[in-house]
């Protein structure tokens, strides 16, 4: 592992660094100021007409199209994968002047990975699997690590792990660091997205600290939520996480991805989070290698908006293919 300043080239994977609590223990995060900034991001910037269409298309490229339900079946997952391969009706795609488009990934439970891999065969769409006792993560560590290996063995190229929230709440940074580092090791070549479950962490300082530890332990992405917490992705929480990964980049040179997840349902949300990424980080974080939107119903709204953009008529979801 690198210790401090590495000099990565291009999008070299974050190898992590040794745990350095002085990078975050004294961090100051002012909640109201973060909320103010988050609230004005979308009042300071907007996209209209062709630009709005393009930004919505870009959002589709970054969506981890997700199903994480107790009643998921292989057929349900196949249907989702079909939508991931063809997220827009052909006439919309054509109207936008695009040749092809697919989502950033498909995100499923580990036992659904084989079905997803089969359904996405022949595409470049990666399968992401949640793991490590998703969503609560309260399973013995060996089992959680075994779950990662299982999903990777089944063909998952991305693993969305959950952290032990107690380590954050108790300030046990070494334990958190060790856990994520072992998970990263278990992932092998698969990319690790660390779900912080920010709704459980409560304070923005905790969010910053957990973000920094996850990155130090080698996370490729940091992700807000499982979608199962009381509060999932919010703009203030996202703001703090992207600032943390900006600080990590400034210290190490490594670029970490960001994935808000849960609670984002509208095309408007898709634009809002992209504005956040562009303003706080820059265009590189509008690409699927550094930005994902963990969502399911958002795509349907985007499709309706894009049809409206083309026809001038408000669209009905019954006229678009289900995910």
């Amino acid at each position, binding site marked *: 592992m690198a210790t401090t300043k590495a000099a990565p080239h291009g999008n070299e994977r974050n190898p992590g660094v040794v745990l350095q609590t002085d990078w975050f223990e*004294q961090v*100051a*995060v*002012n*909640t*109201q*100021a*973060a*909320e*103010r*900034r988050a609230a*004005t991001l979308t*009042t*300071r*910037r*907007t*996209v*209209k*007409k*062709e*630009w709005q*269409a*393009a*930004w919505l*298309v*870009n959002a589709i490229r970054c969506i981890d199209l997700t199903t994480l339900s107790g009643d998921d079946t292989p057929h349900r997952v196949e249907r989702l994968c079909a939508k991931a391969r063809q997220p827009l009706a052909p006439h919309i795609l054509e109207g*936008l*002047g*695009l040749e092809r488009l697919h989502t950033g990934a498909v995100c499923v439970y580990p036992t659904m990975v084989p079905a997803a891999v089969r359904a996405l065969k022949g595409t470049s769409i990666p399968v992401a699997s949640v793991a490590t006792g998703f969503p609560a993560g309260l399973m013995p560590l060996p089992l959680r690590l075994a779950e990662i290996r299982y999903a990777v063995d089944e063909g998952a190229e991305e693993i969305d792990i959950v952290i032990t929230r107690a380590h954050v709440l108790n300030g046990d940074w070494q334990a958190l660091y060790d856990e994520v580092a072992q998970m990263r090791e278990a992932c092998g070549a698969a990319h690790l997205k660390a779900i912080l479950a920010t709704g459980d962490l409560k*304070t*923005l*300082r905790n969010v910053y600290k957990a973000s920094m530890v996850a990155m130090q332990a080698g996370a490729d992405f940091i992700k807000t939520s499982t979608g199962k917490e009381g509060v999932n992705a919010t703009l203030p929480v996202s703001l703090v996480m992207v*600032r943390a990964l900006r600080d990590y980049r400034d210290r190490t040179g490594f670029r970490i991805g960001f994935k808000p997840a849960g609670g984002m349902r509208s095309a408007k949300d898709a634009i809002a989070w*992209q504005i956040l990424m*562009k*303003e706080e980080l820059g*265009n590189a974080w*509008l690409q699927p290698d550094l930005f994902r939107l963990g969502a399911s119903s958002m795509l349907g709204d985007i499709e309706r908006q894009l049809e409206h953009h083309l026809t001038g008529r408000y669209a009905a979801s019954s006229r678009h293919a289900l995910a």
Partner: protein
Amino acid sequence: MPTVTEILETMDYGPAPEATAEVDKWLRAHGPFGHFIDGAFVPGSEYFAVYNPASGTELAQVAQGSDTDVQAAVAAARAALPGWSALPGHDRARWLYAIARGIQKRERFFAVLETLDNGKTIRETRDIDVPLVARHFYHHAGWAEMLAEEFPGHRPVGVCGQIIPWNFPLLMLAWKIAPALAAGNTVVLKPAEYTPLTALAFAEMLAEIGLPKGVVNIVTGDGATGAALVAADVDKIAFTGSTEVGRIIRRATAGTGKKLTLELGGKSPFIVCADADLDAAVEGVVDAIWFNQGQICCAGSRILVQESVETAFTAKLKARLAKLRVGDPLDKSTDMGAIVDPVQLARIRDLVAQGEAEGATLHQAQCALPQTGSFFAPGFFTNVAPANIVAQEEIFGPVATLTTFRTPDEAVELANNTRYGLAGSVWSENINLALDLASQVKAGVLWINCTNVFDAGAGFGGYRESGFGREGGREGMLAYLSDPAVAVRQETAPIPPDTAPHPDAPAIATGIDRTAKLYIGGAQKRPDSGYSYAVVAGGHTLGLAGLGNRKDIRNAVEAAHAAKGWGKATGHNRAQVLYFLAENLAQREAEFARRLAEAGVPDAAEEVAVSIRRAFYYAAQADKFDGAVHSTKTANVTLAMPEPFGVMGIASPADAPLLGFLSLVLPAIAMGNRVVAVPSQNMPLAATDLYQVFETSDLPGGVVNIVTGARDELAKTLAQHDDVVALWYSGPSARMVEEESAGNLKSTWIVANRNWLGSEGQGRGFLLRATQIKNIWVPYGE
């Protein structure tokens, strides 16, 4: 238009202009705009063009108000006054509510028109200015409703002349008109010549809702029109604008009895402590000096950063600066629009160039500016010596200065190293440190971990040369109300000091010579002049008093400044001293009564008795006259704290030599001020006899300093003294006092001579004038 595929490469925002068709139609439908007088538009005699600063194109022709126009408007307001002020508060509340609703129903119209006229971004007019305007009228509808209950005995001031600036045209209109109408006043308002259009649209809206004619009159024009309004038969002038013009108005209204409130310039500190959320503080700079093109009187234009985080903070600030978008103010993705006028642009350019020439380093956004219109790329200076012009002068543009400090003490020292005192902000995650700094910065508004937050429920206004008076909240209402009526008593004429030896002086007759010296810094000092003057009553010389001069005043002011601890003492501590003073005076009650009687003072015994009671009253108030927590934003404690001015001057009436003096000195010191007081010119011995009382009462030296002599001459020196913050004057030379006080724009109070024995000789009104309100905004939430 680029294709979707092309945009996917750049991920640009693209244009997003707000439509102007409705406003264009309105502008086209109007010929030249006249004045709004007595409920109708009347043509002007001359017109001038109003331009869109973003394009330089003409928007409209607007009338240049003449003396005659102003007089017609004032006459209309005067005629409307009896009816309007006699309305029940509830009826005025209905009108204010209708205005608030009218604004909301046309919120986008006003926002677009304001952006066209002023050049500020549509985001700001839409999200900030216009909502605050509506909020202001709602809030003041409430004050109208509750006026009789909340301000018993107060009366409207009368006809108010209001002159507003171009940086927040409609918002400043609301800040002026809403409280004036709520309190029962009528108004003649002059908008700035660069930006009169929203005021004219507002006037049309008033006509539409049917506000009684003459209650609000709007006369457009330049500074000459403003000067005519200041000179007109109005009862009050409220002015927001430059300190330079504020001074002119102060002099012009001196001695006229016109009530005056001034909201002037600023050079507000923006203090970033090492433990601050630096990203939050960077956004604070965006909301401070890179807001409204930096054309904000309360802008945090002096960034003070703790040395240990300077590098990190500056790097973040530069990165953020690079993200700012400057251009078409109608575009919804623009951060900074146009400077209001080419004249202002030239001024900013000159100051910035001069700052660079004097050695400061400019960091400016490298953004492409539009080819036409008045635009200036935002930035900030580093390596700014305190003497650099950009550290001293208000640039009124989007350029801050950045300097470092090492300790909190140094931050305070730097923050207060300015003539101004409008606002400040403090960034720290340590509540102890943040509140400590906020309490020490001399300014009317302090924002902790935020900046440029406004609400109608909190007072806004400055210390020092940033003016006096507050706008918003309870304290703002007081600026539009007159105190309960006081029966004015003709003062006994002061006797010119006579320094010649008086053979009938009774000094030796009483046994041992009594020498009344001056009292400075807790010690008796001989007057610098080396002269004494005879205190004469009923043809007898009672004794001699020192003839104080300018230098004695200078020394007394220095002594008063040295007695800093008094302002920091608890109200309880001050109360104890005042109670003790009453006790010690009571011990010598008979002696004081006898001395006053010898001096021919009527009701001598009662005067001493009331003096003792008065000391009790202000002892009681010392720990009770306190502030408020205003209801403003959610999760925000907005503390309205009455703070002492610091060093005050007091010139006492000739009458009631003991009680008149104490009636002014006691409330001032009860609130924590230190005073330099000139006692009754005719009978100063009543005050000089108090020296021993003060000393035995544990009154710290320097809290009360007494200089005897010619009152008006000494008052003039006090008025001119830049280190005296407020001056109370009882006597006939109001004009002189007010004129001479224009130098540092000190707060003055011309105290009518009155029956000092009665209830009008004391009260909260005295305490209100012995303090200035500081509003501290403390947001919370983890």
